[in-house]
C-alpha cells in the first residue's frame, strides 16, 4: 500500500488488473448506455426539429460572440507581446464519456472511457460544458478515473472573476458545495460572484469558470469569513466531459524533449 501511495511501483500491476476487470465495468455500464441510446433514437420528429432549431439559434449566438472573442484574443496577444509576457495558446480538447460505474461512495470519483490509449495523463483537467469538472487521478489503459472538484481531498486554486481576489476552492463531499478558504472578513467578494480558475497550481489552465458564490458570512472574532460556492459543472448529470491538454510556452529544453512527444500525439489525434 505504501508502494502504491508514495511511489508508482504498482502502476503496472494496477494496469494489468484493470484490463482484466474492464469487462465487468463495461457490462455494468451497458444498461445505462443502452437506455441513453434508446432515448436518443426514439425521439419524435417534432422534438428533434425543436432541438435543432434551438441549437441553430444558440450556435448563431455563439458564433457572434466568437467573432468578438477572436478579435479580443488577437488584441490580447499583441498586448502581451508588447509586455513581453508569455503567450497564451489555445487548449486542445477531446470528449470523453462517463462509464456508469459506482466507485467508492465516500470519495467523489468517476470513470471515463478514455485512457492511456488517448494520451491522458495524471492531473489532467476535466471540464464539462458549464465549468470545471475535476482532474484525472489514475490513468489506466482503457479508462481513467477522475476526481471531482467536490471530493473532500480536492483543492483548486481559483480567483474571483470580478475583483481578482485569489483563494482556494476545497471540496466538501457534497456535489453542490465548495468551500472557499482564507478569505478575510472584509474580502472583496459577494454572493453571486463568479469564481474562475487562476491557473496558479499549474494543473488547470486559467480562466475557466468554476462556481458561483452562494454564501459569504463574515465571522466576527475569526480571521477568515465562511464562504461557500456552488459548482457550475453539472457534476451529477453530465454524461460527457471534456479532456483538456494544456499547451503552453515551454522553456527551450522542455520544448525540445516535448516536440517528439507532441508529434506522436498529433499523429494519434489525426487517426
Amino acid at each position, binding site marked *: 500500500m505504501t508502494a502504491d501511495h508514495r511511489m508508482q511501483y504498482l502502476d503496472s500491476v494496477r494496469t494489468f488488473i484493470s484490463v482484466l476487470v474492464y469487462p465487468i465495468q463495461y457490462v*455494468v455500464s451497458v444498461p445505462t448506455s443502452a437506455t441513453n441510446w434508446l432515448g436518443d433514437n426514439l425521439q419524435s420528429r417534432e422534438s428533434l426539429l425543436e432541438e435543432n432549431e434551438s441549437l441553430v439559434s444558440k450556435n448563431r449566438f455563439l458564433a457572434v460572440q466568437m467573432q468578438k472573442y477572436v478579435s479580443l484574443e488577437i488584441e490580447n496577444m499583441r498586448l502581451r507581446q508588447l509586455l513581453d509576457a508569455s503567450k497564451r495558446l489555445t487548449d486542445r480538447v477531446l470528449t470523453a464519456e462517463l462509464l456508469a460505474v459506482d466507485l467508492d461512495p465516500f470519495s467523489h470519483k468517476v470513470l471515463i472511457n478514455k485512457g492511456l490509449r488517448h494520451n491522458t495523463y495524471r492531473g489532467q483537467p476535466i471540464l464539462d460544458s458549464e465549468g470545471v469538472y475535476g482532474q484525472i487521478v489514475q490513468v489506466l489503459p482503457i479508462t481513467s478515473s477522475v476526481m471531482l472538484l467536490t471530493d473532500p481531498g480536492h483543492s483548486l486554486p481559483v480567483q474571483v472573476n470580478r475583483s481578482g481576489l485569489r483563494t482556494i476552492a476545497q471540496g466538501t463531499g457534497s456535489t453542490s458545495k465548495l468551500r472557499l478558504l482564507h478569505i478575510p472578513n472584509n474580502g472583496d467578494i459577494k454572493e453571486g460572484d463568479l469564481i474562475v480558475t487562476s491557473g496558479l497550481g499549474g494543473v488547470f489552465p486559467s480562466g475557466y469558470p468554476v462556481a458561483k458564490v452562494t454564501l459569504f458570512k463574515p465571522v466576527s472574532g475569526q480571521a477568515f469569513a465562511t464562504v461557500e460556492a456552488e459548482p457550475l459543472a453539472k457534476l451529477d448529470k453530465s454524461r460527457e466531459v471534456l479532456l483538456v491538454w494544456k499547451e503552453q510556452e515551454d522553456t527551450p529544453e522542455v520544448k525540445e524533449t516535448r516536440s517528439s512527444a507532441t508529434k506522436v500525439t498529433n499523429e494519434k489525434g489525426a487517426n
Partner: protein
Amino acid sequence: MADIKKHGGKAILATFVFAMFLMVLPLPEWLRAFRPEFVTVVLIYWCLALPSRVNIGMAWLAGLFVDVLTGTLMGQHALAMSVVAFVTVKLHKQIRVYPLWQQALSVFTMVALGQLLVVWIKGIVGESPQSWLYWAPSITSAVIWPWVFVLMRNVRRRYKVS
C-alpha cells in the same frame, strides 16, 4: 477421491465475478452508502464452506481486484479481506453450526473488522470518510446474509463444488 477433490472451480470464480458486478452496479445516490460488501460476503461463505480451497490467498487476490475495480489504494481491500478470511477460516467449525441469524451476527463482525482496517488505512492516507454511514455496509451485509447463504448453498450443491 482424487477426481472429486477439486470440482467446480468455475462456480467459485463465477460467484466472485458476480459479486464484483454488484460492487460497481450504479445505484441511486441515497442508496450507495448502503451497498453491502458483496465480495466480502461471498468470500466469507466460501471460507466457511470450503476453507481448504478458498482462504487467505484467494481473499488477497479478490481484494486486489476490488481495489482496482473501485479505484481505491492498491492493497487496502486485499489486506482487509485477507484478515477477514483468516478469522473466518480459524472459526469456520464454530460458525458453520450456528443458526442463520447468529451467522449473520458473525458476518456483521467480520465485515466491520474489514471496514475497520480500510478506514484505518484511509485515515493514514488522509481520506477518512466524514459520515457514520460508512459503517452501513456491515449492517446491510449481515441483513442479506441468510439469502446469500441459501443461494450460495444451492450453487454449491448444484455445481457440486467441493
